């Protein structure tokens, strides 16, 4: 499968749409254990990305440059916790796809492994801390385990996203150890982590793109 810069931008636009429609839900989750702004922050960040795509990046065809610019734009617009986390993801991902106008299966896998690891390094969170790392870590593990195998990208990615989804759900029963919600201690049990949720949305939206392209190709 091949993903062009144009399709990569389509992905980002789909994320923007997804963020707008899940904004209230993400705020709702964050109100339970954080400061209630996760949906707002995601929306502010991706609205800035939309501006960016419409203007500075309108003619850009280098996927790496797009990813760097998206990361920086998102970070500048939001700061916050997710700013550095997702920005680092986009920047580290970009390093894996330098100067590429078209991404092949291995590029995509490398991009997302670097993205997930970047988030983890930036946040210094471990699995089980009740953060977005609980979504990314099993996802990265799955990509690493199956990425070199014979299966097609669509299958590999779908499996990895299933792991991500499980990771996201696992945050419900965890006690928060990192971020704002960690002060709650036991009171954080029962609530799903907002960042783990937005992370899952980022991934599942990419899966949708892959499946869409596969279908068109098939």
């Amino acid at each position: 499968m091949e993903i062009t810069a144009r399709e990569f931008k389509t992905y980002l636009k789909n994320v923007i749409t997804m963020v707008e429609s899940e904004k209230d839900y993400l705020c709702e989750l964050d109100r339970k254990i954080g400061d209630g702004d996760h949906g707002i922050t995601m929306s502010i960040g991706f609205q800035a990305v939309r501006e960016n795509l419409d203007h500075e990046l309108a003619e850009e065809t280098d996927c790496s440059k797009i990813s760097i610019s998206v990361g920086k734009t998102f970070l500048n617009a939001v700061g916050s916790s997710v700013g550095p986390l997702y920005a680092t993801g986009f920047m580290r991902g970009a390093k894996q796809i330098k100067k590429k106008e078209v991404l092949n299966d291995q590029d995509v896998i490398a991009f997302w492994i670097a993205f997930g690891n970047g988030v983890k390094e930036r946040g210094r969170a471990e699995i089980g801390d009740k953060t977005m790392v609980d979504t990314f870590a099993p996802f990265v593990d799955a990509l690493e385990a199956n990425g070199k195998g014979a299966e097609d990208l669509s299958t590999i990615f779908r499996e990895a996203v299933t792991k991500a989804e499980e990771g996201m759900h696992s945050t419900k029963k965890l006690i928060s150890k990192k971020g704002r919600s960690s002060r709650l201690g036991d009171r954080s049990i029962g609530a799903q982590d907002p960042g783990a949720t937005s992370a899952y949305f980022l991934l599942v939206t990419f899966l949708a793109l892959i499946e869409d392209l596969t279908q068109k190709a098939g």
Partner: protein
Amino acid sequence: MKKLVNSPVDVVEEMIEGYVMAHSDYMSQLPTNKRSLVTKKTDKNRKVGVLIGGGSGHEPGFMGYVGQGMADGVAVGNIFASPSPDPILEVTKSIDQGSGVAFLFGNYAGDVMNFGMAAESADLEEDIEVRKALGTDDVASAPKEEKEKRRGIAGEFFIFKATGAAADFGYELNDVMRVAEKANAQTRSMGVGLTPCSLPQTGEPSFEIGDDEMEIGLGHHGEPGIEKGKLESADRVAERLVQDILADEPLTGGDEVAVLVNGLGSTPRMELYIVYRRVQQLLNELGISIYRSYVGDYITSLEMGGCSVTIMKLDEELKQTVDHPVDCPMFVQR
């Protein structure tokens, strides 16, 4: 909840505009980043730049504390969200006088990452020496054994004040940081929330709470506390807050302290003084004397109801910093 705003999307930008317009003799906004504000008034003895910052929605924290005797500049984040590295870096470049810059901010994941990234850039790209001191005064936010995990709440005011004074004393970066860290180590806070706040964008209350309940040990971003309890009298609340602070750091007769009873936004001064009254009674009963007290809205959470008590244990040096005059748009001390 009702707000006097235009579009929720513009609140931070418009607040900053209004703030700089109202206090144009005190503040300038950097042309390089509109979230970067620096003072027009600096003590001539000062060598080290003092930078503060964090999310907005805490006014007077943090932009209200830029001026003579406190911070040289502030990076302003979105509501309850750390500023990104860029405005922090721009302020750093603007206020550095060649002797380095002290970053003061609360110990929150977002702030740690963004200020950390800015500090790295300042070092690598600008060759400016940056040192960080994190506010960790909130005793409710982690047990004593994990003190480094604690968040900063109203006690950050004392850290800003002490560090600003140290900078005005002409101290070098090392000594400025020593004072900042001492101020933080000696400062403990504990808060209680009665009513939630709401973000302009959602309008939703930040937590659900019954008419006869209070959140004990809450943060100052409208987060729930560590424990929900029955709403109690001002005296009982004061006792609980002081007890939790003293349990964490026992004070003994003869000790001198500075006290801050901080309103979270919508609690009338009347109530804050009623709480203060009991705090002083309790401390005096233990033979602890109050060197200076502050009662009012110092670091808020939008229109949240409730208050926190902060106690900073003083030595001779910290007393000097407490006494040091300040002239900022939202806080003046003679």
